[in-house]
């Protein structure tokens, strides 16, 4: 009954790991509760996009992940 959270870019630094298991199910509310400190702030306020199983979802608030899903947190991509 778990979900794999993947942290990209600076979020991996803030999380201290590049991935972590969390309990299923997961929505945007439970995700932001799960992440605390600077990581939680960055995810809540930081123009993060979310991909579920390799597909970016249109609205973070529509997150609805279940057992076995991979949820990636994608900060804005770096400039050229």
């Amino acid at each position, binding site marked *: 009954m778990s979900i794999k959270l*993947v942290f990209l870019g*600076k979020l991996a630094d803030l999380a201290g790991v590049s991935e972590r298991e969390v309990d299923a199910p997961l929505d945007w509310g439970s995700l932001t509760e799960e992440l605390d400190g600077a990581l939680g702030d960055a995810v809540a306020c930081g123009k993060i996009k979310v991909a579920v199983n390799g597909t970016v979802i249109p609205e973070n608030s529509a997150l609805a992940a279940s057992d076995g899903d991979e949820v990636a947190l994608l900060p804005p991509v770096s*400039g050229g």
Partner: protein
Amino acid sequence: MNDVRLLDSALVPEAALARFGQDHPAAGGIASFVGKVRPDDGVEALELSHYPPLTLPGMVALATQALARWPLDGLLIHHRVGIMQPGEPIVLVAAAARHRRDAFEAAEFAMDHLKSDAWFWKRELRAGTWHWIEPRAHDHADLKRWK
């Protein structure tokens, strides 16, 4: 037709271009661009990270878009990930076409999107400390040309 790759070891533009030219013998012209880690600004190294489920598929979709927009014989996109030293190539784009304007435009289109609309995160090592690179307003101006 398209040759789109993520590379985790050295990108050798000349070798890739030579092969691309052989693969498209009928193209009148090939426009290309090589982007390198600039050996200035006190940057000691650059690290590019990616997310496999998105990054390469996004690059493949970009190539498909370019091929739908310009009459090309082929498009090549090779992009590094991992840690690179100053002077090392990061990206090679090449477009083969009958007409040079199409080749130039497709190569610029691909570069503008790779630089600001592809799933890469970069950090630079400066004075022994890693710094994440943020998006730049200028990149979005570059993308607007193609809307």
